[in-house]
């Protein structure tokens, strides 16, 4: 009974969710891939991005300013965290895990103290529809997809076509070798962490009109990005794409057939079974 229109909107809905998941997960994956650090405060970095938009609104700046500032603010914050905490815990991944979890609690409480505990709203930057083959779809969602594609393209370009990316890949392969080749690893780590944080902040800022903004909202997004990263294969840029597509489309499609909860449980079981046969994840090398 699916007619073309609903099929198309359904596809676009799925594509939006996929874009969002990829935007949220890509920072997490980059940081893990390069540094071996799992940043449990990633959800809070995301929320900091959203609060940057709120803060911009309080300062009577438009939401576009908020979206532009968020990656800068959160990226700088990430750099601060790297210098203050992460730097001392290289090669101690479990300790990093604990420290970033502690950090996530601290950020949440600080956001609460500064912005208050309630839900916050800010004006929508881009209301309105576009017409696609005679059907309307919110223009902001189309914009989200475009940004996602751009972010992916830029990330891939940076990693595979620039000097910076070359050094990063050298470090990912073999840290000691990279150091021996006079690559300044600690500076590379710093920029990687800042970059990953900035991407989380950007995702948060972009999602502000579509989600609930409260200090506690970060954890849910953290859980989802873990899903994507585990399924796609940890530390793989392409894995994030694959994981995002699988999780997003499965959730959208399965929610037609079974409950979303069951769908998520099923995705996890499938992921674990896949890991038995492909320990590096579905799309891992």
């Amino acid at each position, binding site marked *: 009974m699916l007619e073309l229109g609903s099929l198309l909107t359904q596809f676009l809905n799925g594509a939006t969710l996929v874009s969002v998941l990829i935007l949220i997960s890509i920072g997490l994956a980059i940081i893990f891939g390069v540094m*071996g650090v*799992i940043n449990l405060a990633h959800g809070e970095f995301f929320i900091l991005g959203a609060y940057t938009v709120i803060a911009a609104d309080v300062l009577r700046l438009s939401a576009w300013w908020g979206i532009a500032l968020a990656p800068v603010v959160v990226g700088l914050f990430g750099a601060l965290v790297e210098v203050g*905490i992460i730097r*001392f*815990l290289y*090669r*101690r*991944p*479990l*300790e990093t*895990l*604990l*420290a970033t*979890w*502690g*950090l*996530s*609690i*601290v950020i*949440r*409480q*600080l956001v609460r103290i500064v912005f208050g505990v309630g839900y916050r709203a800010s004006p929508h930057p881009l209301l309105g529809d576009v017409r696609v083959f005679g059907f309307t779809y919110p223009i902001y969602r189309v914009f989200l997809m475009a940004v996602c594609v751009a972010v992916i393209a830029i990330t891939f370009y940076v990693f595979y076509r620039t000097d910076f990316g070359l050094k990063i890949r050298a470090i990912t392969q073999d840290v000691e070798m990279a150091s021996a080749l006079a690559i300044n690893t600690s500076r590379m780590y710093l920029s990687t962490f800042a970059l990953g944080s900035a991407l989380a902040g950007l995702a948060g800022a972009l999602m502000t009109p579509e989600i609930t903004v409260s200090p506690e909202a970060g*954890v849910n997004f953290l*859980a989802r990005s*873990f*899903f994507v*990263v*585990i399924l796609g294969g*940890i530390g793989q840029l392409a894995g994030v794409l694959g994981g995002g597509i699988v999780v997003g489309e499965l959730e959208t499609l399965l929610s037609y057939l079974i*409950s979303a*909860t069951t769908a*998520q*449980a099923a995705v*996890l079981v499938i992921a*674990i*079974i896949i*890991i*038995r*046969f492909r*320990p590096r994840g579905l799309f891992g090398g």
Partner: protein
Amino acid sequence: MRSQPARLLFAAGVLVALALPPVAGKYYTELLSQALIFGIFAMSLDLLWGYAGVLNFGHAAYFGLGGYLVALLAREVQGFDQSYLGYALAVLLPVVLAGALGYFLFYSHVTGVYFTIITLVVTMIFQLIVSDWYWLGGMNGLLGVPGFALHGPSGLGWEFDSEAQVYYVLLVVSAICYLLCRYIVRSPFGLVMAATKDNQERTEFFGYDTAYLTTIMFMISAGLAGLSGALYAHFSGFVSPPLFGLNFSTDVIVWVAVGGRGTLVGAFVGAVLVNLLKAIISDFLAVLWLLIVGLFFIVTVFFFPDGIVGTLRRTPWRAPRPLPRAASMREGGV
């Protein structure tokens, strides 16, 4: 071998534990009872984390499973004593789940951080399922789990009503669990586990199936966690989805880290101390408590890696045995 002062300290601890209820009053006795249950739970995590070097970031899944099983039995099965069946299943089901996960993960050489975040997602899924599945009580949880009771074969039975009775029962159960764990970690199996934690490759080259052995340790750990969950269900009379929560999973990590991982006793020390401290501090610092917890996490990692018991054990009265601080391959796992 224990030295004189350590023995004295231990004996003093036992005496204090025995003499507490009349001094502490009803509320603190109950709080301590709860801390004992949490202590067993923390110890089960320590078995895996401290002795096998594998951190389960979703340990609450097994606790919650035990608790929910008991609550479901209490609701569904009437007319016969569910408590024994409850305990048995509360141990068995987590063991099976751990076995399955171990088979899928350890046998694929998934350890370290990778294992850790998968366990984290596992507990999130459990929380999702119990929150959203109506039959399991949903967000409202399950009410009406009976209290502790002991039933003999011929209608003989005791109900443990008063706070002090419950406390002593739990003290005995904790002691038994502790001795069991101590036996395991000091057995040749415990030694091989320690070896695996230190250097997995070398252990494999001695002919040990480390995936198999680690899975066994995981199963023991999960079973014990399930038991503590069952105890908790009887103790509180109520179970709800946050028992599976990420917060609870990280709480238990804090208890073990504070007490000192790889010490067993430390799990109890951490559970009792943190819960007591929280009860006291949150009286007048409710809003700041979480901030303190967060900072504490970070500070512990940096300045206090051995925990209380671990630090005490390095004091002069014991033979010095500092371990190299660099994490082993297994923990790194990257």
